[in-house]
């Protein structure tokens, strides 16, 4: 097997005095889509924020393409090739849709052109001049994803992209993620909705109380349903 693109070893993270991650080990291989499952508050978002360096109080090792992320300044992480789509979407209200889309600097060649992005997200084209936060929740999610695709990042960290969205929009986001996967994008997806995730994920990690408690490929999902039902409460 090839080297993992993203590798976490014994990652611990703290919010102030609160110990949120207790030694997380996780690998994502190039071109893979990996889903991190778990209930609210188990540390999924914290894991993504600790990878990006948005949480600085952390120990362990995190490497991306062989490069150490732990001692990298925050603004170098995106340049290394990691794109972050936060749970709250992070659309800027003082920027237009166009400005939001063009905000993240291009970090590597090979990103999508604006035309390709507008083919993927036709709604954004018609609303280019609107204020970013005037978009619907689904459109804001698409914008949050679209703006990372321009930049040429090698890997996306997506935090609950389907949360609070109508089924038809969730369907659309699933199609977009499948399209990205087909183009070779590596994706680490945080989701509570594993019915959505199973359509695109290659592997799953299950997280409880700041630790990874199970890891299995998508083919084993059905035989793990009892465990998932219990842990996720669905």
């Amino acid at each position, binding site marked *: 097997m090839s080297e993992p693109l993203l590798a976490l070893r014994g990652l611990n993270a703290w919010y102030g005095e609160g110990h949120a991650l207790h030694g997380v080990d996780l690998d994502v291989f190039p071109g893979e889509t990996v889903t991190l499952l778990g209930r609210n508050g188990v540390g999924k978002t914290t894991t993504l924020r600790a990878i990006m360096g948005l949480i600085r109080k952390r120990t362990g090792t995190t490497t991306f393409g062989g490069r150490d992320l732990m001692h990298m300044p*925050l603004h170098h992480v995106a340049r290394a090739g990691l794109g972050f789509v936060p749970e709250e979407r992070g659309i800027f209200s003082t920027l237009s849709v166009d400005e939001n889309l063009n905000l993240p600097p291009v970090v590597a060649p090979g990103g999508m052109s604006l035309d390709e992005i507008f083919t993927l997200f036709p709604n954004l084209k018609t609303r280019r001049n609107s204020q970013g936060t005037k978009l619907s929740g689904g459109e804001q999610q698409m914008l949050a994803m679209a703006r990372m695709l321009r930049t040429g990042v090698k890997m996306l960290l997506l935090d609950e992209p389907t949360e609070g969205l109508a089924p038809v929009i969730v369907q659309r986001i699933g199609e977009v993620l499948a399209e990205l996967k087909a183009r070779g994008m590596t994706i680490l997806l945080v989701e509570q909705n594993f019915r959505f995730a199973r359509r695109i994920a290659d592997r799953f990690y299950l997280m409880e109380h700041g630790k990874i408690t199970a890891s299995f490929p998508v083919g084993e999902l059905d035989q793990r349903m009892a465990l998932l039902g219990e842990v996720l409460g669905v």
Partner: protein
Amino acid sequence: MIFGIPLQAFLGQLLVGLINGSFYAMLSLGLAVIFGMLKIINFAHGAQYMFGAFVGFLLLQWLNIGYWPALVLAPLVVGVVGMVVERTMLSRLYSLDPLYGLLFTFGLALVIEGVFRYCYGVSGQPYAAPDALSGGTNLGFMFLPNYRGWVVVSSLVVCLGTWLAIEKTKLGAYLRAATENPKLVQAFGVNVPVLLTLTYGLGSALAGLAGILAAPVYQVSPLMGSDLIIVVFAVVVVGGMGSILGAVITGYVLGLAEGLTKVFYPEASNIVVFVIMAIVLLVRPAGLFGKDA
């Protein structure tokens, strides 16, 4: 005659108000830009304005460099000094309560003013307007000193230019986005610490530019900044903390309000800005253009 006041006197005071308003607008603009991005109330702003005027004065004294080069050099010097201060000192305070930034800039203002007081005393030094702008123009209804007309026009251009740069350019988009959510913008790969340094430099440079523009109007004195800055803080409060457009518009409006008060009730002209501030705080605590009012 207008309301029993001679038209000449009325327009004359209105012009004085417009001149003062031009300086209020430029200074409160710089304060608003700095506050929006750094979340720090820059108490050194008045001292930086004074520093700008002194750079012009000293360039003339020491190097015989006149007004026009000084108009570029003074903001540049004040801006660069501002960036050095931000990088070496102010940036260490971002992780602390904003009160530390306020106290630091307040202390910095005292130090800068103290140094110039020690060297030049408190009496003002004259600084002549350039020859090209001496004299005046008869507008038919009033006599307009050319230099004052120049101040009003350049202040309008500077304020409009700064506003356009923030609203319409890529760098301005970074600035607006980082004002909203600096961590996320940095996680996108933008070097936000450098952006903060540039912002403080820009705000300081605006103060320095106002200072060199003011040098021929008021005298160059170590206290010229502290006299003005209290009014400018009132302008920022009325306009709404951090609102760029609010700061500019409120600056001009309050300058004019001050001028008008001088016509109709001169005794109140020094306090009218603060009366307006008190009323605005009662009615709209976030300021006229502030959010969440």
